[in-house]
């Protein structure tokens, strides 16, 4: 079995691998975190610890899922807030975890209601032995508007509270950002100005996932009513990657240290977050669905990827794809690429014909007798929708052609992808 070093340094702390549980129901107590460490996770961001005076009172039920066809958990809606256990019990768990798992990384997530809370919580978790602090400035379902994403969308408060944490602790600290904002850069800059060492993102996206059509109430139904709350899982991955990309290309933030979060469940998801600038990774939803064991395939798959890429240090991969995502106006618009149909694979279902007519440019014709499509190059714009809808991978990218009057050598044009050519 392959074995490569997945170790990586983040904010001056060494992680044996980049995979961490994010602050959530999956790391709510010592036993859970211990089991996760035993199964191979590199770190945990222990479920957010709040001040003693703020009482957590949860609803029941508290989850919902978005499904599609036979696929469960396309997305996951969650109404749970921060840790319910008494403050001292949480602090004792942190101490015990660090004592029993000295090589694993224990990150304390904290959330206060005012500056004093933040200072005090930072001091307490530092005394308890945590390796790092994560500030939860982003939970979208808190019962107090002085906490969570209402704070994270206010750069002045973000800066003030980051500075407060730095007064209470000298541990490395990351601020966890909310995606419920048009531009994350001002909030992230405010966090860094306030003393944060890095950024964790994204937290969950505010959502209403489903409604009960008879009762006319959103799900989950909490004694007849429901609330907007955070959405996570595979469906939010594109949103998370977009925010991370935007942070990493903002002026002055090119080397911003990021802990990436949002829909990670496979090694491929993990690599995407790393290539766009994440140094560590955090996971919850996939663990809620499948358990801690998913880390085994994420680690092993990542090792094989590094081997294929000839990379010995994971840090060599961090952020190397940022430069390949450009503003729309900077892309090459001088050519088009036609689809190529593999007749050995085509089974004659006609899905390409339907999608091209109804969703693109009527460039595929259909032979009723032979049940086979053909491409009308005079109409094809090279969008490759047919390629995406083909259920058997019979359509790939084919001939490249320069648009009339444009300069360029088709030999030099790079559009090949294993994810589009099958």
């Amino acid at each position, binding site marked *: 079995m392959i074995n490569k070093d997945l170790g990586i340094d983040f904010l001056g702390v060494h992680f044996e691998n980049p995979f961490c549980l994010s602050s959530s129901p999956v790391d709510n107590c010592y036993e859970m975190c211990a089991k996760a460490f035993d199964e191979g996770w590199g770190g945990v961001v222990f479920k957010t610890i709040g001040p003693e005076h703020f009482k957590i009172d949860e609803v029941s039920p508290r989850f919902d899922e978005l499904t599609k066809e*036979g*696929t469960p958990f396309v997305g996951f809606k969650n109404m749970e807030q921060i840790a319910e256990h008494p403050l001292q019990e949480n602090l004792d768990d942190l101490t015990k975890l660090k004592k029993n798992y000295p090589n694993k990384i224990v990150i304390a997530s904290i959330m206060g209601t005012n500056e004093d809370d933040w200072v005090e919580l930072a001091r307490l978790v530092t005394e308890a032995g945590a390796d790092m602090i994560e500030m939860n400035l982003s939970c979208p379902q808190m019962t107090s508007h002085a906490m969570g994403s209402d704070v994270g969308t206010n750069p002045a408060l973000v800066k003030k509270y980051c500075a407060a944490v730095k007064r209470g602790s000298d541990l490395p600290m990351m601020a966890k950002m909310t995606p419920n904002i048009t531009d994350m850069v001002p909030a992230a800059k405010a966090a860094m100005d306030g003393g944060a060492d890095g950024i964790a993102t994204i937290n969950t996206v505010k959502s209403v996932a489903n409604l009960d059509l008879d009762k006319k109430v959103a799900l989950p139904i909490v004694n007849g009513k429901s609330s907007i709350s955070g959405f996570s899982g595979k469906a939010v991955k594109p949103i998370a990657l977009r925010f991370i990309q935007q942070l990493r290309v903002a002026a002055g933030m090119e080397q911003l240290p990021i802990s990436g979060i949002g829909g990670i469940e496979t090694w491929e998801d993990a690599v995407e977050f790393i290539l766009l600038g994440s140094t560590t990774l955090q996971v919850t939803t996939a663990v809620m669905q499948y358990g801690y064991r998913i880390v085994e395939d994420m680690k092993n798959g990542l090792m094989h990827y590094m081997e294929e890429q000839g990379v010995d240090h994971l840090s060599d991969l961090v952020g190397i794809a940022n430069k390949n995502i450009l503003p729309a106006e900077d892309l090459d618009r001088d050519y088009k690429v036609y689809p190529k149909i593999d007749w050995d694979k085509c*089974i004659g279902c*006609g899905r390409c014909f339907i999608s091209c007519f109804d969703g693109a440019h009527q460039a595929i014709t259909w032979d*009723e007798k032979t049940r086979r499509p053909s491409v009308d190059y005079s109409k094809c714009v090279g969008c490759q929708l047919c390629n995406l809808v083909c259920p*058997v991978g019979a359509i790939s990218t084919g001939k490249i052609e320069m648009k009339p009057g444009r300069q360029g050598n088709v030999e030099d044009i790079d559009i090949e992808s294993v994810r589009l050519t099958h």
Partner: protein
Amino acid sequence: MSNNYTKEDSGYTMTTVAEEAARCLLCHDAPCTKACPAGTDPARFIRSVRFRNIKGAAETIRENNALGAICARVCPTEKYCELACSRSGIDVPIDIGGIQRYVTDFEQQAGMKILEKGKSNGLKIAIVGSGPAGLQSATTLLEKGYAVDIYEKNTKPGGYLTYGIPEYRLPQNIVDYEIKRITDLGATLHLNTAIGSDITMDQLKADYDSVILAVGASEAKMLPMFDDQANVETAVDFLARVKDAKGEVTEPDNVVVVGGGDVAMDVSTTLKRLGVKHVTDMVYEEFAEFRASKKELAGTQKAGVTIVDGYVPESMTGNEVTFKHRKIDAEMKIKADKVILAIGQQVNTDGLGITTKRGEVPFIGYQTQDPKVYVTGDIAHGDKTVVWAVRKGKEVAEEIDKTLMGGRQND
């Protein structure tokens, strides 16, 4: 063991049917839809399931087929829609019958009433026989505004559906529900009424605008060597007896079945489900030319039946039957407690005023020489399956309508 006889295999759940529907490629020119003899549109109802519109799926099935829940269970789909399925180009066809069963079960549980009676046109049709062809023609005629009376010689309606197909494959409550739908629509059933003895054809012709004969092939064929043998029973009698008793029957330990069609498979599997230790099915055809559907054959083999292909019965002495191979020099003698003959069925046309040749009327189409009298179902030209009975039931109704109404819309 009757439990095993009455127990139907479990069907899909909402989750598993969604998974199966998601396998469907949603073809542009769905070959499954072109392949159904009854004109069912699987492409459309599977798409409805895919997009979570189960009620719409039920409408697609029911508006086309009065026996949708029955066809879902007994149709040899491997020869029709599933044979045509494009998914076979990847792995295995979509389980169209299984999806149809989920949808029609939903329709029943939701108490949906999809069929609508047409506005009365004042015309009356008599249908002789309440099997699948009679039931479908009744439904189509009712939808067009005709009044319909169905005459059935037996005590229960349904013909072969009720008396022939075993309970584990087609629960009687499904048959009863399908028939209730049709009587709710306005069909009147006259049970225990035989044509000839209880009411004459002349009487029917006088009382009705048209008469449809849908009597089917309800009588078992015999072979002379088995005449007067005490421990020989026909498949028709056996299946009817077991179904009527809901499997509460006692059979001996060693039974030989003669025949290789779906009926022989039903008899053999039923015997195993009843707990018979040794069931040997002797088949005229060799495996390469087998008549039973692959699904039925597989079920029979799974049940533990010994199947011997290529043998013809020669003689029976006491409880010993001698078989000879059709092509090679081989002979088998089997001592059996009982022999069940599943070698085909024949038509009884007594009192109907028609003639048949090899079980069919000797012409293509539905109208007989007597312009008031039509035939449909197994006695009409074409395949002898439930799905074909549905097709013929619709077609005979269309032909009557064309004759009586000149194809005019009744509105």
